[in-house]
Structure formats: structure tokens, C-alpha cells
């Protein structure tokens, strides 16, 4: 029973808790512990509960997290968060600044504070503090994101911890703060900011990591979705757009297969490139969009058509500038940044080994504790940042896809709860943590499968690391507590 309930028409504790979130939390942390054990057992021996192993330590940290969670749910009045959000935020910022000067140097970043036997990263806590602070500010009744001053303060609240974390040389953690843009969008920020920035980043990275073809294909894919969404023409989307997208997605692969069958290197076939078909298709679609935009006086469609053309040009120019204009050393830096450079002992090594491990899992995986790649220490940072390799290798495509879907469910459930909430504070906080978990998920898994540059941030609830597990648990349970508090009355 809650200690803080005073009204009579309250719902019981079990009715107010979102059990879906709790179940999700337990499943994911247990998956984490199992895979931490899988990644260390062969080298260090022992069983999963052995406290000298990382899996054992993680279990202890799970225990600590659960104690904290119980306190949050039962002992701490949820109203306190709103009231204390400013001091918590200020204290955290001070701690972040302090750690730059006194922090222990771990792998080149000065972001750790040692408290006796325990090391922790203030950057982990600051995500919660920033979320609370944003929720507090933006839930004020006179707050309007469109107002210049309000927007500026909001941006400051996000940028200050971000910059101090960059000063700690933890650029990866700082990147997570970019995720708050999704929350801002939900709260009224114009969507074009996201679209433009997102597309530019997407095209840039896709062009350099794969090819112009895939960058443009990505754009095309988005275009189809847009056309489907715009007028709700789902039938068109499903019947024509999706098959076309699948066809174009597989085109380079088909070309590869046909190319192998043709012996003559001068064959006409090699003059045709998959991108010609793609460009032809797009050239066919764009006039259609413009015509429809003209007929319906639909302003956004013009923007979409222009954006499509701009995106194609951007992709080609990225490709051209990168390969022809940049000098070798400049190109090298970007390649290292994007993890493109074959550097067997450096960045490229991790990604390559990680993809080998995941790829070797096949459809169903090699079975729990049966992995050969991940258990032999080929993949560095095996139990922390690259934990997803173990899942990929031992549980295969279906297992790892299931894990991703589990996260999607978790994030969806948070958003769902946030939307149901009647208090702006809870809603905004919910969106904040959904954004954080989303960014971690995307960057971390993207990195292990070569979609993202190597950015060392943990997979929430799964990666080994006590302070990370504890702070993600706090983050989630504060939200559950906020929800519980509301549900009691409504």
C-alpha cells in the first residue's frame, strides 16, 4: 500500500502500477544478465551467479536497483520530483563540471567518480535530472515552445549538460541528448526541424557507409510512406509502394548474382547500374507529386518533391566531395569517425568482428553459451557496449529481432502511458525517457551492425555496468511512480 494516499476513492497499488512496463523491465534485464554471462563464461569460468564474474556483479546491481525501485514506488512521494527538479538539476550540473576536474581517467574519458569501491558516471544521472527539469519547465501553464524566450531556456537546459559531457570526452553520451528533440516535437516544435536534420544525417551517413544507391533508396522509401500517409492512400502504398521498395532494395543483390553468372567482362550488362533504375523511378514519381500538389494546392507536397531532389543532389555531392575533393588525411578522419576505415587494430576491428559475430548467428543462432565468436574475446567491450553481438550470435536473427521488438514495446508503452497521463509533467518526463532509451537503442545496436559509427554507449538494461543499470532503473521507475500517483485519483 502506498504511504501517501489520503483519499478514499483510491485504487489499489496493483491497479495503479503499469505491470507491462515492469514485466518488460524484468525480461530485458534478465536477458542482459544471461548475455553478460555468455560473453564472459568461457574465459573466466564459474557459474552465472558467481559474484566475481560480471554476470554476478550485474545481479547484485539488479538487486540494488530493485531496492531503489521499491523505495521509489512505495516510500518517496512522487510529488517530490516536481518540487525538487530544479535543485536536482543544478546539483547534477555542478557534479558534471566537477567531474571534468576530479574524474578518474577511464579509456581516455574523464567522466567517472569513485565512491569507495563503486564507480559511477554523473552523466548517467544527468539524463534523469535533465528530463525532470524539462518536464518541470515545460509543464508550466504559460510555457509555449513557440515563444522565443521559452525555446531558448529549453535549449539551454539541454545544451549545458550536453556540453559538459562533451568536455568529459564522452561524446557518445552527449549524442543521446539529441533525442530530446522528439519530446520537443511532441510538445509543439515544428516537425520540419526533425525531418530536415534527420534526412541530412541519414543521407550523409548512408552515402558514406553504403552507397548513393542506398541513400537515395532510403529517401524513396520515405517518399512512399509520405505518399501513403498524406491522403491516407494505404491501398496505393501497400499495393504498389511496398513491393517496389522491396524490389529496389534487392536490386543490387540481384545485380550481383547476375553479374557473377556473366563471364564476359565487357558485357553490356555491366554498363547498367542499379541506380539508373532507381533514378528513373524517382523521375517518374516526382512529376506525379508536383502535379497532385498543384491540383490540390498542397504546399507540403512541393516541399517533399523539392526535398527529394535536394536529397539526391546532397547524396551525390557528399559522395563526390568525399571521394574526389577531400584530401586523404581528411577523408581518413571521417572514415574513422564513421568506422569505415579498415583498421584491424582500431575502430574498424571492433565493427568487423562484431558483424562477423552477429552474421554467424544465422536465422536461429548457435544456441545459448554456444557462440564461438563472442565467447573468445574477438569482440572487444564484449559485455558492455558490444553485448548485442552475443545476442546476435547465440540467438540468431529471430532472437535479436525479438529483443529489438521488446524494446519497441517498452518505448511504445512509455509513450502510451505518457499520452494517457493528465499531467503535463508526467507526459513530458515520459517522452524524455522514451527518447533517451530510443537513442541508446538505435545508436548501440546500429553500431554493432555497422549502421552507425562506433559510439560507446550502453544498451539500456542489458549492457554490463552497475551505474548504468541503476540509473536506467531509476529513470523508468520514477516514471512508473508518477503514473501510479495519477492513476490513483483518476
Amino acid at each position, binding site marked *: 500500500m502506498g504511504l501517501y494516499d489520503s483519499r478514499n476513492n483510491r485504487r489499489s497499488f496493483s491497479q495503479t502500477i503499469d505491470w507491462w512496463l515492469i514485466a518488460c523491465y524484468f525480461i530485458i534485464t534478465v536477458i542482459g544478465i544471461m548475455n553478460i554471462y555468455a560473453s564472459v563464461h*568461457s*574465459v573466466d569460468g564459474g557459474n552465472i551467479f558467481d559474484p566475481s564474474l560480471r554476470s554476478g556483479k550485474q545481479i547484485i546491481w539488479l538487486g540494488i536497483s530493485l531496492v531503489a525501485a521499491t523505495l521509489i514506488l512505495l516510500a518517496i512521494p512522487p510529488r517530490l520530483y516536481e518540487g525538487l527538479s530544479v535543485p536536482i538539476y543544478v546539483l547534477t550540473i555542478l557534479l558534471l563540471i566537477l567531474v571534468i576536474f576530479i574524474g578518474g581517467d577511464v*579509456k581516455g574519458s574523464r567522466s567517472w567518480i569513485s565512491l569507495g569501491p563503486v564507480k559511477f558516471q554523473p552523466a548517467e544521472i544527468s539524463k534523469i535530472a535533465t528530463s525532470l527539469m524539462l518536464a518541470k519547465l515545460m509543464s508550466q501553464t504559460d510555457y509555449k515552445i513557440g515563444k522565443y524566450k521559452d525555446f531558448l531556456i529549453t535549449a539551454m537546459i539541454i545544451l549545458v549538460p550536453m556540453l559538459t559531457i562533451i568536455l568529459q570526452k564522452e561524446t557518445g553520451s552527449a549524442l543521446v541528448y539529441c533525442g530530446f528533440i*522528439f519530446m520537443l*516535437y*511532441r510538445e509543439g516544435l515544428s*516537425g520540419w526541424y526533425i525531418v530536415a536534420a534527420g534526412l541530412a544525417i541519414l543521407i550523409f551517413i548512408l552515402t558514406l557507409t553504403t552507397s548513393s544507391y542506398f541513400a537515395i533508396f532510403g529517401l524513396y522509401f520515405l517518399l512512399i*510512406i509520405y505518399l501513403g*500517409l498524406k*491522403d*491516407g492512400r494505404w491501398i496505393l502504398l501497400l499495393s504498389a509502394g511496398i513491393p517496389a521498395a522491396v524490389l529496389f*532494395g534487392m536490386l543490387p*543483390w540481384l545485380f550481383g548474382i547476375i553479374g557473377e553468372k556473366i563471364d564476359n567482362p565487357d558485357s553490356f550488362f555491366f554498363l547498367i547500374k542499379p541506380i539508373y533504375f532507381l533514378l528513373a523511378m524517382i523521375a517518374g514519381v516526382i512529376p506525379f507529386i508536383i502535379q497532385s500538389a498543384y491540383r490540390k494546392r498542397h504546399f507540403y507536397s512541393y516541399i517533399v518533391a523539392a526535398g527529394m531532389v535536394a536529397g539526391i543532389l546532397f547524396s551525390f555531392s557528399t559522395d563526390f566531395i568525399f571521394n574526389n575533393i577531400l584530401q586523404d588525411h581528411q577523408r581518413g578522419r571521417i572514415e574513422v569517425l564513421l568506422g569505415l576505415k579498415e583498421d*584491424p*587494430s*582500431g575502430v574498424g*576491428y571492433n565493427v*568487423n*568482428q562484431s*558483424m*562477423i*559475430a*552477429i*552474421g*554467424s*548467428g*544465422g*536465422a536461429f543462432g548457435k544456441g545459448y553459451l554456444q557462440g*564461438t*565468436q563472442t*565467447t*573468445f*574475446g*574477438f*569482440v*572487444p*567491450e564484449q559485455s558492455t557496449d558490444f553485448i548485442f553481438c552475443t545476442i*546476435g550470435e547465440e540467438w*540468431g*536473427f529471430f532472437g*535479436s*529481432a525479438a529483443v*529489438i*521488438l521488446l*524494446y*519497441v514495446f517498452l*518505448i*511504445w508503452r512509455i*509513450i502510451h502511458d505518457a*499520452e494517457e497521463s493528465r499531467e503535463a509533467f508526467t507526459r513530458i518526463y515520459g517522452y524524455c525517457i522514451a527518447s533517451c532509451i*530510443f537513442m541508446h537503442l*538505435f545508436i548501440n*545496436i*546500429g553500431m554493432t*551492425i*555497422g*549502421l552507425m559509427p562506433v559510439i560507446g554507449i550502453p544498451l539500456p538494461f542489458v549492457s554490463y555496468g552497475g551505474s548504468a543499470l541503476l540509473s536506467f532503473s531509476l529513470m523508468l521507475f520514477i516514471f512508473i511512480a508518477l503514473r501510479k500517483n495519477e492513476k490513483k485519483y483518476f
Partner: protein
Amino acid sequence: MILDRKTKLLFGLGAVAVTLIARLFVIQIIDDKYKIDSSNNSMVYSTIYPTRGIIHDRNGNILVGNKVVYDLLVTPKEVKAFDTLEFCTALAIEPEFVKEKMDEYRRFRSRIGWQTLTFLKQLPPERYMKFAEISYKFPGFRGQARSVREYPYNAGGNLLGYVSEVDADFIKKHPDEYRSGDYAGKTGIEAAMEKELRGEKGYNIYLRNSSNRIETRFRDGEMDKEAVPGNDITTTIDAELQHYGQMLMANKVGSLVAIEPSTGEILTMVSSPGIDVEMLADIGTHYSEISRNPYKPMFNRAVQAPYPPGSVFKLVNALIGLQEGVVYPGTLHPCSKGYHFGKNKLGCHVHKSPLNLEESIMMSCNAYYCYVLRDILDNPKYGGVAEGMDAWHDYVQSFGFGQKLGSDFPSELGGFVPDAKYYDKRYRKGGWKSLTVISLSIGQGELGCTPLHLANLCATIANRGFYYIPHIIKDSDNYKIDNKYREKHYTAVDTCHFPKVINGMYRAVNSGYGSGGTASVAEVKGLEICGKTGTAQNPRGDDNSVFICFAPRENPQIAVAAYVENGGFGAAWAAPIASLLVEKYLNGEISDKRKPLEDKMLNADLMYKVKKN
């Protein structure tokens, strides 16, 4: 349908999830690449390095052989605390070195993982055996045998070239052929014959068990591949002669090349100062020392230095003159201490005047060749000096000058022979005449010839009008040389004209002191050496000393070109050195009478005369 923002965000979430899952689908199910790699990863391919082919000299002596050394490998993750002092004593290394390495491994431990790294390179077997006895105390360290080059003769450092570990650039240039840790020939014969010498790597396949220990042979070694040793190569070099040539050229800057005229085989090719074979075996340690040396020992002067040929080039002008019919053996030309034109003169030394063709070669008269060259260029049968110049250019080229000879030796340079177009550009069309280019008559001016060109000229004269492309790899059962080395290349001068020039060369050497012959110092009784001295101007100090000769007069066995930078008269250094080489080759030893001359040549140090670069 208008969507609220929550739904749009959820769509975004869905799109990202689809992207991640699609990517997983590609690397786990569609793309085979990662599966192949991963079998490589749990199967351990242990490379067996082939022994490199041996390089023999023409008499079957081993010029380059192999010996076994050990690399000490370390797997940092397996290293336990050990007695540093004992470790260092056994390996004869400094404790600081060990500490530094260990610190480095600790710093990069997450990157290194289970990888095995090289701790020390090229330990001699005695040293490694000492360590191997106590190696059980040092888990994580193990030795790997590797064969490296060994040089029984101190001969031909520059020719042989060195072998060293391939770097990233090299691997990029030869994809699929080399991997990090392989060795490859980088210069000289080692580089030119790399494909023959390297052999094929083999491998043993092992399987790892679940704790990363190598447990079993994969399919009992059924899939293993034996290493195929490299092919042995025979060179045309005479190891003893090469060594002797290097001794003669010690402490002098220049080059000494000897060719067997009847085959075009290079017997000796010295570039001085050169690289000692001791350094070749361990090039890594000496590389910076060699590249810092101001005399550039890596630079192979024999095939890369374009020198003015000096008076030896008079032979070429004499032959062209004979062929063109502008000079006959009996043609007399006067010389009054030079050739006078207007207020200018091209000087000459004091000798009898007038003189005929043979005497002009014997006494190396400058004026005589001014007449010859002018008669060639201003021959009325050509429309003007430009046409005459081009005719002359074609003749000279037919001797192999002004172009790469096409030898099998890497990095050969072509030198330069000017033609009418060159002078048109330099002066202007019609702005020059035969007098303008008069220095060509005595092998000065714009000419650039490598010592190999000069040796080839000498072989051509010895053969009375043709040459085989000089080459350094000898035909053998292991390796068939290209047919182009068996083709005779005739010059544009008829065979009948050569004996007239050879008579002059014979008299230059064998007329005795006081006769006016310029190369009496090169005379060896019974060998019938025919030679021609040269003294080529060098803008950087004293003249260069040049000499070419062949012997014996009939059925020549050896043709030599010697080029000593800043050595002064041809007779001063180049002629004695070349004649000693000939004597050594044909007689096997130096006669007592010529021992003082040999001592003088072996001990002379001319380095002080040479300006450092």
C-alpha cells in the same frame, strides 16, 4: 487522414526498428560474407612461410641463402606475472623495453583482446634456444621460426636488393597476394624476381575449443596446405669478380660494369659506395643510416646515373664517320693543341700532328673528332645540319644510347642523346650549326649515358657490331629467360668498320709508355686488352675518370666500363681498375708486376674529392 504527433513519432520508432531488423536480416541471413569470415575466426589458420628461393652466381656459388631466426610472439591475455630479470637475461634485452611493452599491452588490452603480437623480431637460434629452455616460466610467449636472408659473399649488395616486411601501402598495391607479416623483395633482384623467389605460403588449420585453446587439427590436417618453396635463381654475376670489383671501387664514387660480350650477361655490376650485405640482412635497423648517407648508397649508379661519356664516345663518332664515308682509316687531320674556330678553340693535349684515325683513337685527339663530327653533320647529302643531326642521333641510338636497354634489372634509366628537335627548342629553328654542338664530338655536352650503356658500347665493339641486351638473370632449368635476351641487336654501322676502331683501341693500350698511347697503364702481357680512355668534365669538381676495354682482341671474353667520379684522367683510376678486373677474370690472379698498381687501387681513397649531396 491526419495523424497526431504521437502517432507520427510511433511511426518513426517503427521505421527505425524495421531498419535495424532489416539490417540484421541482411547480415544474418542474406549475406554469406560474415559466415565465411566467422569460420575463419574459429578455425585458426597457422601460416607456414615458404623458404625463399636461393640466388646463385654464374658458377653455382650461393650469393643469397637462407638462415633460420625466431620471432618471439606474445599473447598479452595469457601472460602471467614473471621474473623480468631472468626473462631479460635470457633474451639479452633491457628491462625498460619489457616494461614499456607490457605497459603498452595493458593500455590497449581491450583493443588487443586475444590477438597475438610480435614481441621481438629475428632472434638468432642460439639466443632463442636459451630462452626456449626456460620458456615454461613465461606463459603467453612463444617463438615462431622464420627464414631470413643470409649472404655468404660480400658481393652485390645493391644488385641483390633487400627483403623486408610488407607495409600497408605495399599490401594495397598487391591485394590478395600479401598480408601483414609477409616479407617481400623491395629492391634489386629480390624485387625483380619476387614472383619466382617468394614461393607459396601454406597453412595448418586448427580448431579452437570453447576456451580459445587450440585443440585439434581440422579434419586431421586433410585440408592443410604445404608451403611451396620459392624457385632458385641463377644470376649472371661472378661472385668472386663482383667482390673484387667492389674492393677496387671501395672509397671511390662511381661504377664498374663488366659484360660477357658473347651473351650480354652482366658479370659484375658495382655501384660505389654501395650497401654492405651485412646491412641487407637487417635492413630495418640500418635503413635510416643508409638513407642519411650523403653519398646515397641506395642509388644504383650503374644503371641510374646519366654521366657524360667523355672521350670514349669518340669511338662512336669514328664508327659513324666510317659508315657515312666522311672519314677513312687514312684520313689525316691536323691538331694544334686543339681545334680552332673563330676566336674559340676546343683544346687538346700535345701529340703528333697531323694524325690518322687509328692514331686519333690511340692518342685521343680532340681536334680530329671535331673534324669528323662536322663532316657528319654538315654532309652535303643531308639538306642541312638539322637533318645531319637527326641522322647522327639515329646512329647513336642504334648503339643503345638514349634509351633503356631493356635489361631485367629494375629501375634502369635511359640517359639522353640530343636530336635536332632538342636544339631547335633550345636555340631556335635554324639558330644553331655544327659548331654549336661541337662538344658532342668528344662525348661532352648534352649527352647522358649510364655506365651500363658504356659497358654495352664496349661489348658491341668487341662483337664487331652487335649486342645482346645486358641482363643479370641467367637462363637455368628453374627459370627461362625472355627470348629478347637472345636476339642480336645490330648497330647501323657495318661490321667491316669495327676492326679499324679496334686497332686504335689496341694501340692505345699496347703501344708502351712514350708512344703517345693514352692507356698504357692498362696493358697486361698476353691479354691483348683493347681500350679507350675518357676524361669527362664534371661541373662539381675534378674531371671524371672513364675507361672502357675488352679482352682478348679476338673472341673477347669480357667488356668492362669503369667510371670514377672526380678521378681526373681516364688513365689515372678508371683504366687501372678496369684492366685489373679484366686480368683477374681472365688470369684468375694479378701478376706480380702489377701488384703495386693493384695495391694503389685497393687502398686509394678519393672520397675527399667528391662533393657531398
